[in-house]
């Protein structure tokens, strides 16, 4: 990005999204505390805080991890992806509250430094059932912290998209740590297996969604294009591409989006420069190809973001012969203007 950064890039949609997150969290906490007080009158205030914030954070984490595959399975879920970072920071805030209250409650009231106490109070590393589950939660929280503090686009730009993406993929390791943290915690402190059942159901749901989404994308990538003419491959009939929309084709392991705009076809690289979003799953808004993930825009004829932004993607040659779309998979340098192909 080249326009000046702001602390939080709020717009109307993001404000609505954030109000919905706040409303959901408030309602959840209210319901959790009310139900717990009805079921267990002896529950302490500290326990209520620790449990309500932890269950809410775990629930939000499941929603966050489900959004990606759900969007790949059905475009209707894309609005959830638009502001997922705010959902992530909200989840971290509740996880931090849980961690903070827990460290205070269980480790801060003695003579030992609470962080030292966290690691030395249970050293049963060779026992599965008695394993120090609190340390697992601490490391998960550390990963969420690193993700939350790098959630601004400034970090994406300055750590490089590859490093940023790698760092944020650690969410899956954090999730595994959270699952173990909850399961071992319940085994060591609870008789009721309901939390174990809920977290296992959540894990199975997430694994299934990821497998389904992966299988859908594999089918798209495995399609073979056999007809070739002077470097151009036949991809589809022209009428299959709707106006202001695209079709994605994977040729030589590169995904290319062929867009239809004002009765012409244009081809650009499918990967958004921002966070690798699938440009071909977006649409044309105000004359620009708009990424469905965070709204980054590119001009169809040259793959350049409109000024003052400076992102560029590769462009490709496309032609139409007898109503059939032919695509040349050799990319032009990022931001190269191409004439497109007129639909007759």
């Amino acid at each position, binding site marked *: 990005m*080249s326009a000046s950064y702001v602390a939080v890039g709020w717009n109307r949609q993001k404000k609505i999204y954030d109000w919905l997150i706040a409303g959901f969290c408030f309602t959840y906490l209210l319901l959790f505390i009310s139900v717990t007080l009805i079921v267990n009158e002896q529950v302490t205030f500290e326990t209520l805080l620790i449990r309500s914030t932890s269950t809410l954070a775990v629930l939000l984490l499941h929603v966050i991890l489900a959004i990606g595959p759900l969007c790949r399975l059905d475009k209707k879920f894309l609005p959830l992806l638009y502001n997922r970072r705010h959902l992530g920071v909200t989840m971290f805030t509740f996880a931090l509250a849980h961690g903070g209250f827990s460290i205070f409650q269980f480790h801060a009231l003695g003579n030992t430094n609470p962080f030292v106490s966290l690691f030395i109070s249970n050293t049963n590393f060779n026992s599965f059932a008695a394993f120090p589950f609190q340390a697992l939660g601490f490391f998960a929280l550390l990963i969420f912290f690193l993700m939350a503090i790098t959630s*601004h686009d400034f970090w994406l730009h300055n750590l490089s998209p590859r490093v940023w993406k790698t760092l944020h993929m650690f969410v899956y390791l954090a999730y595994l740590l959270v699952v173990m943290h909850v399961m071992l915690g319940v085994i060591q402190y609870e008789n009721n297996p309901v939390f174990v059942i809920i977290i296992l159901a959540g894990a199975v749901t997430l694994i299934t969604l990821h497998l389904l989404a992966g299988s859908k994308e594999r089918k798209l990538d495995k399609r073979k294009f056999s007809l070739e003419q002077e470097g151009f491959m036949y991809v589809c009939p022209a009428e299959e591409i709707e106006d202001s929309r695209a079709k994605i084709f994977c040729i030589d392991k590169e995904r290319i989006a062929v867009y239809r705009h004002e009765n012409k076809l244009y081809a650009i690289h499918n990967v958004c420069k921002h966070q690798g979003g699938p440009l071909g799953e977006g649409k044309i808004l105000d004359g620009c190809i708009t990424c469905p993930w965070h709204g980054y825009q590119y001009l169809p004829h040259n793959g350049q973001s409109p000024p003052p932004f400076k992102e560029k993607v590769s462009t490709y040659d496309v032609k139409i012969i007898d109503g059939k779309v032919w695509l040349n998979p050799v990319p032009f340098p990022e931001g190269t203007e191409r004439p497109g192909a007129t639909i007759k």
Partner: protein
Amino acid sequence: MIFITTILIIMALYLLAGLVFAIPFVIKGVAVIDEGARGSSWGFRLIIIPGVTVFWPVLLNKWLHASKIKRS
């Protein structure tokens, strides 16, 4: 216990150095390494402080590199 205490002290010193670095960085350095930060709000500069405190060696390297290019 000594091992964990030592690790925690090293981490605390590292973060303290990052916090000290963060002050001149958000005032001046951020605009040197990233043109998107020129004319940016104070809200933005405050919001990146936790990240600067952790990733300060990367940013220091970028700042030194950018200053070197500017001088030559």
